[in-house]
């Protein structure tokens, strides 16, 4: 189905190298987490896969398609990649209600209004926002806005879903519940997930595989069991 293959990706901003020799394979239907310190390039990696940035070198395949190749100049526009994304900064539209925000991907696809609404209400119930449909984002708390962003990503049922710290602003209990729901929905619909988080306990609990980034390079990758005793995780645990 839809695996992601990144080969030799490199990206720099104004001469500063942010990502280099980035090789990553996410198998079809897998749930892979990107873990690493703040500023190590996690968001940049997601944005490259999404097509919101273009790599200086390397290529990315999503499913059968080469979505970008720096060598040939091939590029598929972000909206044509069938990739959903939940942004670290939420990116909830201030001029739309909660309902309109979450229903937007369906609206773009031309889904009829009645069906759109029922789908949206269903997914809003999953993230625990039922009853807030008509609110504007300015009337929501940070955690509620984050769940709007998450619902908007989930409703798409894309081939690939990119999640950039989607639970960072929720309390511990809600975080555990939400990550189970994400996992359940993923297993039901079978999309591929690339998940960025700071929280290694979360990463270990939820992922099929973990990738540890440091200073723009991949330090290690493996299953939770393989990496549980990795010094990077251990040192973070110690400092936490």
């Amino acid at each position, binding site marked *: 189905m839809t695996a992601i293959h990144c080969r030799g990706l490199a990206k720099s901003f104004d001469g500063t190298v942010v990502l280099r020799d980035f090789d990553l394979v996410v198998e079809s239907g897998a749930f892979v987490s990107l873990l690493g310190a703040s500023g190590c390039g996690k*968001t940049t990696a997601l944005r490259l896969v*999404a097509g*919101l940035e273009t790599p200086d070198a390397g290529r990315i395949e999503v499913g059968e398609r080469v979505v970008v190749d720096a060598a040939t100049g091939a590029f598929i526009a972000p*909206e044509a990649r069938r990739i959903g994304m939940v942004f670290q900064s939420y990116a909830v*539209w201030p001029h739309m209600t909660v309902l309109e925000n979450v229903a937007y991907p369906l609206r773009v696809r031309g889904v009829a209004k009645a069906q759109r609404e029922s789908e949206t209400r269903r997914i809003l119930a999953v993230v625990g926002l039922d009853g807030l449909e008509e609110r504007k984002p*300015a009337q929501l708390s940070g955690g509620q806005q984050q769940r709007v962003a998450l619902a908007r990503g989930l409703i*798409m049922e894309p081939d690939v879903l990119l999640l950039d710290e989607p639970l960072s602003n929720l309390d511990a209990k809600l975080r555990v519940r939400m990550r189970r729901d994400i996992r359940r929905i993923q297993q039901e619909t079978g999309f591929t997930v690339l998940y960025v988080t700071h929280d290694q306990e979360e990463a270990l609990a939820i992922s099929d595989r973990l990738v540890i980034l440091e200073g723009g390079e991949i330090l290690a990758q493996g299953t939770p069991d393989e990496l549980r005793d990795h010094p990077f995780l251990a040192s973070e645990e110690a400092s936490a």
Partner: protein
Amino acid sequence: MRRPGRVRFWLALGAVVVLGILPLALVVKKAAGAGDIFWETVTSADALDALFATLRLALGTTLVALLLGAPSAWLTTRTDVPWKGFFRTTLTLPYIVPPYIAALAWITLADPAIGFLNAPFDSGVFDIFSMHGLTWVMGLSFYPYVFLTVRAALESADPSLEDAARMSGAGPWRVVKDVAFPLARPALISSGGLVFMATASAFGAPVLIGNRAGIDFLSTRIFDLWSDDLGGIARASSLSCLLFAFALIPMLLRGRHHAVLTGQASQPTLVRLGRARRPVQVGLLLLVLLAVFLPLGAIALTACLRVAGDLSPSNFTLSKFADVLGASENGRALWTSLWLAAAAATIAVALGFLIAWLQVKTRRRGRHLLAGLAALPLATPGTVLALGLFLLWVGPVRLVYTVWILLVAYVAKHMALAARALAEGIGAVDDALPDAARMSGAKGWFLFRTVWAPLVLPSIVAGWFLVFMPSFSELTMSVILMGPDLETIGTRMYVMREYKSPTSASVLATVVLGLVIGSNLILRKLSGGRYGV
């Protein structure tokens, strides 16, 4: 916050009222006292024609400004069009060119008889002396309001809002329609309103072009009535009330603002124009050509011609500069404008500092009212303000027909520009800094000189130039208030145009442009790019 000097507050309020509010009150009083004359004037066929013409001009100009300003703002912030930096600078340039100079330029370009653009044709193809011509000139002068406002709105909006729409499957145009446009709507409404107001209030360009086209506008009608001797002032005041109310219509429009907090500071993902990249670049280049290079070039070219309209090499000369600037009345006018503008800027900065300080650093009741009152003259059409100033200073303290009334007029009109720049600068100063100086025993003038002034120096300089530039090139109030022997560089140009002396007018316009653009460069450099274009 500390208890502010009561004296200072009343001083500032008194100055603002005398400078800007009393004159306006006198205009209203004159109109109200005119009784029948008021209704007769306001409902006369002339007035209604002028009202209708003003409405057409203001709406047309607003439309042109929106159509030029909004797309170019989007293209230069959100797409991969080449030469973005160049376009951002050049497209803003008309902002600092006084509209009457743009009008002079377009007259040399599209005068049906001798305009450069009409040279290849037997009969005049382009006629600037028409409603369309004037709308064109005003639109090209005022679109930077829209360009700058929309650009600022797009730049302050969190770019991931647009990225999120693309990740939801929306193509570039859909993103514009569903996200970028709604986010920019408040900016479109407010800048469109500003253009409407500025156009309805404008005097210079409408009088230069409208007179020959035989079209009267409210502002030019007021000027004509004003020079009638019998009952002219009452009629002019009546019409002024109408214009004042009219120019303020856009204030009723309030765009709903979305609180857009910038989350991560990431750069917007640029829309790839693909095959449209070259055509878009050419389109923007054309706009730059029409709005900047063509008119400014025409002015400079005309200033270098012996006989207007003749482009043969033997006709080029620089001697006109010496001739025109050597003429004593021009030299005197230039000097008058220079020192008046400098004096006005200095006074406005002093007063503006007081207003801004009271507004930002004290909790006195009435401080926002003070700032609001200080801003009123800026929003008032120049013709109306000048009329009020005349009514006020005709007696008992008589300043009319002296140079001092122009000084008062420039300060009154532009003090809000200085106050605004200073409010920003003062607001950015941490309270602890002056407090520490006070704990060391500093107060009053010493405190100002040693702590405030150095900390807000950039804003003081910016405020000074922001008042200097429009005062130096001011036309409207200067023409109305000018008396015998009282001429500024603006009124000289106006007079020369009447005598059909395009070359001399162009020489002066070139000098004004040089000075304004030079001041602007200094301003930009000193403020680190925060002010100036």
